[in-house]
């Protein structure tokens, strides 16, 4: 296969030129009010996107043809690396992942501008200008500081290969989904800034980008869960979330985007919280880029690495420009963003949404604070302090529990106002279910306050959401339809509402799975053949060791028989391998999973005599996390196919507000 690698760098340089041209055309169109210039800008952006595609194809071609004259190819692939993992090498390193980011950004920008409803040429022009500006930054980074096409002379005969941990099926999907989410937020961000710049501050900007926001959020959500699944099956420590800065970097924009998705409903329904929504979408995009800065700049290992790193010093001014520029435009348009309505009552769905937003933003602040505190302490005191999982568990969990409670309370409260009596009546059943769950678990010997609270609130919230489905279905039932048909009709007739509830049910299942982890059992032991160890109710016996070799690795395949109550119930085959290219050992875990608990077995060492170190975990309810993610994905599918929102209520008489300004 002929390497097209040499085409990569020139393509990026020419793309840079076209993006500058596109940006200039968009700005000129917006300022001079010439829509046809905006069309020219879009054409220039399409050419730039095409050239970035050429660069991506060039890098893929270099990877697949083993063209080790490119430093990136030599660093992240090898001749023995299989085809699918050669593909993952595209985003396995910093330069490749930035190219992949730019590729997604240009494609999204072209599609978003092309499919933007015929609303306002000026809105589209400013959105194009913002997207061109962002693309310009990433292309400059690729051309100057993080070039994936840097040459290596002399070229080595083989590459270093991909980190064995990244050679997992999850890595084929997890990073692209995260990038899809991160980059996807650039579209609502660009349209929000455009609305501010063009003073088109009615609903247009968020209705035009609603699907983009949902799409980005959905991709990020699934990407985060898949990252957890990858950690669970590959890293061998029995868990799925470690509050690692890289995980936190993906979680931060998810938290603010979730807050935005909720608060924008208030803007749709009541034309309130406009400043807040603008700030949230700005914050979401800044955090998405900040996450990339955090994980790619080297700042996490040390502040000194950051100053030495190739791209850290590029990101900081870009982030500052976006944040300060965004806040400045919001401040300038502050009067135009005044709410058109007021809360009618503290006991209303608007209040519940507001509380939800406070909690999500507080959660985001907590995670951000814990993530950057080591950096701040190093800057201010010269001493780097650790902030690990116990901090996040302690501070984040109460907020998460309150969010679960609000997820149940929200659907019970009506918009505008609700009497306390009506609320008490409607909340009786969910409260009863929650109380029964707590009592039942308490009687079964569960005494952890946190777990009781989490399971009880899950019961409460599940009952509240289920009763919404029942209430909706009753209408169709009264017309003679079956329960199943009624449920389907209920969901399909109002996909946004019920799709959201399905997502919430998925979240509840995930919370149940997370709460189960507080009952985890763990044991480790050194075993010779024939010896056993106990974990939870299981007896694990080291039965057999089989050794073999491939071109990539030396394999130690261990046979572990699993018994419970004196009866053999399963055989597991964990591995401890040695990868030649990286000179690195790697464990392959074995998991026996069911809805009640996972038995998770990992061999952490094998000595020449055949003795092994075996680590085993019993992880209760973990299965529900993955089922919850699947339910969430189903809900996201329903949400994404939902139509535009119902008409917002008309402005209440007598409200003093600024008129909605038409485009100049």
């Amino acid at each position, binding site marked *: 296969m002929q390497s097209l690698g040499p085409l990569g760098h020139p393509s990026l340089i020419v793309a840079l030129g076209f993006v500058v041209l596109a940006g200039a055309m968009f700005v000129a169109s917006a300022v001079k009010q010439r829509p046809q210039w905006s069309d020219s800008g879009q054409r220039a952006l399409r050419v730039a996107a095409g050239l970035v595609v050429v660069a991506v194809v060039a890098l893929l071609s270099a990877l697949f043809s083993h063209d080790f004259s490119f430093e990136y190819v030599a660093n992240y692939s090898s001749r023995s690396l299989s085809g699918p993992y050669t593909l993952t090498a595209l985003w396995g390193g910093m330069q490749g992942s930035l190219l992949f980011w730019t590729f997604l950004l240009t494609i999204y920008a072209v599609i978003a501008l092309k499919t933007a409803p015929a609303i306002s040429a000026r809105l589209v022009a400013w959105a194009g200008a913002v997207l061109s500006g962002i693309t310009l930054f990433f292309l400059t980074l690729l051309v100057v500081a993080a070039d994936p096409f840097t040459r290596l002379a002399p070229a080595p005969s083989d590459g270093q290969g991909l980190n064995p941990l990244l050679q997992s099926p999850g890595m084929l999907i997890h990073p692209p989904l995260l990038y899809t989410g991160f980059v996807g937020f650039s579209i609502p961000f660009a349209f929000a800034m455009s609305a501010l710049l063009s003073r088109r501050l009615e609903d247009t900007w968020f209705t035009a980008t609603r699907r983009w926001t949902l799409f980005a959020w959905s991709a990020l959500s699934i990407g985060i869960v898949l990252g957890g699944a990858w950690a669970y099956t590959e890293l061998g420590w029995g868990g799925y979330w470690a509050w690692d800065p890289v995980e936190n970097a993906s979680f931060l924009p998810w938290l603010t985007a979730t807050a935005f998705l909720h608060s924008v409903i208030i803007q749709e329904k009541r034309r309130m919280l406009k400043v807040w929504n603008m700030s949230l979408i700005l914050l979401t995009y800044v955090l998405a880029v900040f996450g990339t800065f955090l994980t790619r700049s080297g700042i996490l290992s040390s502040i000194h690495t950051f100053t030495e790193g190739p791209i850290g010093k590029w990101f900081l001014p870009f982030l500052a420009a976006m944040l300060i520029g965004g806040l400045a435009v919001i401040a300038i348009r502050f009067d135009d963003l005044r709410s058109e309505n007021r809360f*009618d009552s503290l006991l209303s769905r608007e209040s519940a949404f507001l509380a939800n937003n406070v909690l999500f933003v507080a959660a985001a602040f907590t995670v951000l604070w814990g993530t950057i505190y080591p950096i701040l302490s190093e800057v201010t005191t010269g001493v780097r302090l*650790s902030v690990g999982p116990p901090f996040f568990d302690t*501070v984040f969990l109460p907020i998460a529990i309150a969010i679960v409670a609000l997820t149940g309370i929200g659907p019970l409260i009506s918009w505008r106002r609700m009497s306390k009596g009506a609320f008490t009546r409607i909340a009786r059943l969910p409260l009863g279910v929650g109380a*029964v769950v707590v009592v039942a678990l308490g009687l079964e010997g*569960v005494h952890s306050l946190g777990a009781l609270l989490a399971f009880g609130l899950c019961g409460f919230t599940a009952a509240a959401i289920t009763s919404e489905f029942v209430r909706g279905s009753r209408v*169709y039932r009264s017309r003679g339809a079956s329960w199943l048909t009624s449920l389907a009709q209920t969901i399909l007739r109002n996909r946004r509402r019920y799709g959201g509830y399905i997502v919430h049910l998925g979240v509840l299942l995930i919370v149940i799975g997370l709460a189960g982890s507080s009952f985890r059992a*763990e044991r480790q032991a050194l075993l010779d053949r024939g010896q056993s160890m106990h974990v939870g109710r299981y007896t694990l016996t080291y039965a057999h060791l089989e050794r073999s070799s491939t071109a990539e690795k030396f394999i130690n395949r261990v046979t572990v028989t699993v018994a419970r109550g004196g009866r053999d119930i399963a055989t597991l085959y964990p591995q401890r391998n040695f990868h030649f290219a990286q000179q690195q050992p790697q464990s392959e875990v074995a998991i026996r999973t069911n809805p009640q608990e996972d038995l998770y077995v990992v061999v952490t060492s094998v000595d020449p005599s055949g003795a092994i170190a075996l680590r085993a975990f019993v992880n209760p309810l973990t299965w529900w996390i993955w089922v919850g993610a699947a339910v969430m994905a189903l809900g996201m599918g329903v949400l994404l196919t939902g139509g535009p929102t119902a008409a917002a209520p008309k402005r209440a008489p007598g409200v003093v507000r600024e008129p909605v300004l038409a485009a100049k």
Partner: protein
Amino acid sequence: MKTFVGIAGVALAVVLVVAPIATAAGPQDIANSISEHVMSPFCPGVTLHDCPSDNAIQLRSQIAAWAARGWSVQRIMAKLVAEYGPDIRAVPSDRGASRLVWLLPSIALVLGAGTAGVLAWRWSRTSTDPTPRPALASHDRQRLEEELALIRNES
């Protein structure tokens, strides 16, 4: 009756799925808990519990051995800090300037909730909707809810 059956069903499901998950705390449980509260000296940015290196495996075994000898958690932590330095703690102490790491999230949450609460209260007091809302009779309320449900499902 339906409500009772539903609640009983939930209780049964909870008992069947979640019941056998309580575990006793032995020396290895103490060692596991400690390893989750200290950073690994061998894997940067990772707790000792999650670190896959051979040295970490040995240190975890050592901690389990100390716990089996009856050492208290405080004594084991003190030993680890003496050997590897204060950075080994997975969280800064809650004394002196380090207390800020614990306090700031709570302060932010209280301030955020307070601000939102005050704003919501003020907005609800200055509601501009002049429509009076007479109390509904129960049969009217039932009919209204049915019709609202219809509208919701049509929209």
